[in-house]
């Protein structure tokens, strides 16, 4: 076991982690631990753009953006946080441009902007061009630009270091941050990182669904580590299903395709979104569009032999426009479906995309251990966190924005905290739990296979916890997960070695997915209303009297070591927008 000492440790090297690192490296001795090479992070898969009311191409302002974010989140958004997001968006985009990001440009040479779902002029009057973009590879450009600037700033990376545990210690009755425990993939060695400040920026947890746009690596490692250490997870029942994933594969096709004029059609060729969202049509918010797609499918207007998908039609757009603005997604259609999007509509279905919920933080990125107490020295930013700027449904282009605004804030706050704080003494045997966990899995000789449990989990979540949910389906999910967790105790892995043991890591990741799927299903079962991405057929309307509040899920352990989930609730911060009926 090796012990390292840093002022600030950042867990994850996607957009949020690297944006934080650029700030914290200037101010404190910083280490970035990442289970991948930084440029492999899933920020790079984001396509359509980053929202900011630059008003480069038409009238716009941050207040309209704030309103759209609050409404898009179905009034579960903390409005103070949304205001910060929209206000700081402008500098966040300009900062990236100054770091070198190659945005598409207007004829005048300024950053070009395009339409995106749910982003409107003057509180919903019409679609507005707010998304700053680089073709359909904006996330790739952000990830590369941030990595380039990390190289420039000399950020210290520990690549392929997998953080398995968060170390907290009580000092004078206050729970404080002591560091993290990591597993070095190349050697199998355990590393303890003592740190004054820790920032979780480890991404989402979408891999508990089968049809998903998420990478294999998005297994909620940060959320699970925090949860097991007694910290709450906020709003985990809110998961976003992006309307346009490639049929059956789930590979993302950007909303920017509809921003450029693409149209969704059912088997009759009908532009069905006109029925569901008369003003915004195909550019309504994602939850609305995904539900509309499934309604079409359920009512027999789906396409294909099984009627299980609809079309994204780009055939009326000039090929030059597709080549210039949507080169990657048109190539995906050619590569994976063998079709030509110039002339063929693309078969699509909703795909599990983004966790609105996560580790609760305030607007400085400080992690909360209950509704209002911060854990000194602990921060989170990006998809792993819940600020909450996305509420019950995130708007497209607000996540690339979130990672930049709150990644930067967390990086500054953590480094400033580390400048004045002392190290907290490490617990005795700090790596004890991790070693015990790894040895249990490595030496397990049960008959259960990790891949079987994982695919059954994914199947159950797709069937029971997707776009449409009911009490019965969510209970089924809870039951399935409990059975799978029991089977998980009897897994074995084939690779018993130390070197690059990805067999072992997949088993650890499955444990994280099971825990987080359970929180998602249990939180969803208790929320007897429909709001944003959480739609209950048995409670089809929003219930602001009982449920305009955040879910806070805690892991409880009884005297016998049995665990359960306790739910509590936290008020939503409302500043200037009272909840209204949500129409697009």
């Amino acid at each position: 076991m090796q012990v390292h000492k840093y002022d600030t440790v950042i867990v994850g090297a996607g957009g949020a982690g690297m944006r934080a690192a650029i700030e914290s490296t200037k101010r404190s001795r910083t280490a970035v631990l990442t289970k991948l090479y930084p440029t492999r992070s899933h920020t790079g898969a984001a396509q359509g753009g980053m929202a900011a009311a630059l008003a480069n191409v038409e009238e716009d302002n941050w207040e309209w953006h704030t309103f759209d974010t609050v409404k898009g989140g179905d009034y579960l958004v903390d409005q103070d946080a949304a205001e910060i997001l929209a206000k700081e968006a402008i500098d966040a985009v300009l900062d990236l441009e100054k770091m070198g990001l190659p945005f598409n440009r207007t004829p005048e040479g300024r950053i070009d902007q395009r339409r995106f779902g749910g982003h409107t002029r003057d509180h919903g009057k019409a679609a507005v061009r707010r998304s700053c973009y680089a073709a359909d590879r904006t996330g790739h450009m952000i990830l590369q630009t941030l990595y380039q600037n990390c190289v420039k700033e000399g950020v210290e990376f520990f690549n392929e270091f997998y953080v398995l545990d968060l170390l907290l210690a009580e000092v004078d009755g206050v729970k404080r941050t002591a560091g993290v425990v990591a597993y070095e993939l190349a050697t199998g060695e355990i590393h303890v990182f003592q740190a004054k400040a820790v920032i979780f920026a480890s991404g989402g947890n979408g891999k508990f669904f089968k049809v998903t746009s998420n990478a294999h690596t998005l297994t909620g490692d940060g959320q699970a580590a925090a949860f097991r250490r007694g910290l709450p997870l906020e709003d985990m029942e809110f998961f976003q299903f992006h309307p346009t994933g490639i049929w059956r594969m789930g590979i993302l096709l950007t909303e920017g395709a509809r921003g450029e004029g693409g149209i969704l059609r059912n088997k009759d060729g009908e532009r069905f979104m006109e029925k569901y969202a008369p003003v915004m049509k195909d550019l309504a918010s994602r939850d609305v569009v995904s539900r509309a797609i499934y309604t079409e499918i359920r009512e027999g207007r789906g396409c294909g032999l099984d009627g299980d998908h609809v079309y994204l039609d780009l055939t009326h757009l000039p090929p030059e426009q597709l080549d210039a603005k949507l080169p990657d997604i048109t190539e995906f259609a050619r590569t994976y479906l063998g079709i030509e999007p110039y002339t063929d509509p693309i078969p699509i279905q909703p795909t599990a995309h983004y966790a609105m919920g996560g580790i609760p933080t305030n607007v400085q990125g400080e992690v909360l251990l209950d509704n209002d107490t911060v854990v000194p020295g602990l921060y989170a930013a990006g998809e792993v966190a819940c600020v909450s700027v996305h509420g019950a449904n995130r708007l497209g282009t607000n996540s690339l924005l979130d990672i930049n605004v709150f990644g930067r804030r967390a990086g500054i706050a953590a480094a400033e905290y580390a400048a004045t704080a002392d190290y907290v003494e490490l617990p005795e045997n700090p790596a004890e739990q991790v070693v015990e966990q790894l040895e249990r899995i490595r030496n397990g000789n049960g008959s259960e296979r990790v891949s079987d449990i994982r695919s059954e989990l994914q199947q159950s979540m797709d069937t029971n916890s997707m776009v449409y949910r009911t009490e019965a389906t969510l209970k089924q999910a809870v039951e399935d997960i409990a059975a799978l967790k029991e089977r998980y105790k009897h897994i074995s892995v084939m690779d018993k070695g130390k070197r690059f043991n990805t067999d072992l890591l997949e088993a650890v990741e499955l444990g994280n997915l099971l825990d987080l799927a359970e929180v998602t299903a249990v939180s969803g079962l208790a929320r007897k209303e429909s709001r944003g991405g959480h739609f209950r057929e048995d409670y089809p309307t929003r219930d602001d009297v009982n449920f305009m509040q955040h879910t806070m899920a805690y892991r409880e352990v009884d005297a016998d070591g049995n665990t359960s989930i306790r739910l509590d609730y936290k008020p939503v911060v409302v500043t200037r927008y009272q909840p209204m009926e949500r129409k697009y």
Partner: protein
Amino acid sequence: MSTPTIEDAAPQGGNPHSAGLDAAESGKVELVTITVRIRRFNPEEHPDAVWVDYQLTVDPKIRVLDAINTIKWEQDGTLTYRRSCAHGVCGSDAMRINGKNRLACKTLIKDVNPEKPITIEPIKGLTVLKDLVVDMDPFFQAYRDVMPFLITTGNEPTRERIQSEGDVQRFEDTTKCILCAACTTSCPVFWNDGQYFGPAAIVNAHRFIFDSRDEGAEQRLEILNDREGVWRCRTTFNCTDACPRGIEVTKAIQEVKRALVTRRF
């Protein structure tokens, strides 16, 4: 809008329908049994690499990565490789498939002659650590050595820097790089001389040398004028063929060479 009358055929309606779309939507799967022949190496177990054959029955429309995953998940959990996004944007799974560098997640089984054994090896020229996992550190070091970041002087502008769409086009192609190393490890010069910067580093230097906002071109050109720099390139075009992002790598290298001669960029 036309009204569909045929219920049993693939839906028509107002939608254009080609044979390609019908094939994609048919859902018809004709399973094939394939042999995947993988170069296995684990120095914890044995000092030498060996070829191991795996038989599996799959839909030929799946990705090579899906086949490798199936082997790992159902036959041999010790099989080791890197992967993440699974759709060609993260650059984790570059490997030599039937002797050519490709991303396993962007290559479909049907396109790699599944009637014969499909051979899979680690990319060449970097030290193999286990199975298909190679040491990427020298590759990223070469990248860092070309100063792959915007270099500017003077005060920052208040708003964005102005750049015409035409100026963006001069380096747009090389911004697509995902650092997968498929190009560098397909280069015969790199195989023989690990100190050569290699195509990927030059691509990333190009991305900044031709960016109208950048002021560091002279420094980068001096670095690439080195004995191990652009002049080692023998224009074999392996790199261009290997690039999963369709970057014209050899052309970019030629543009850097020309800039070194003319000092115009």
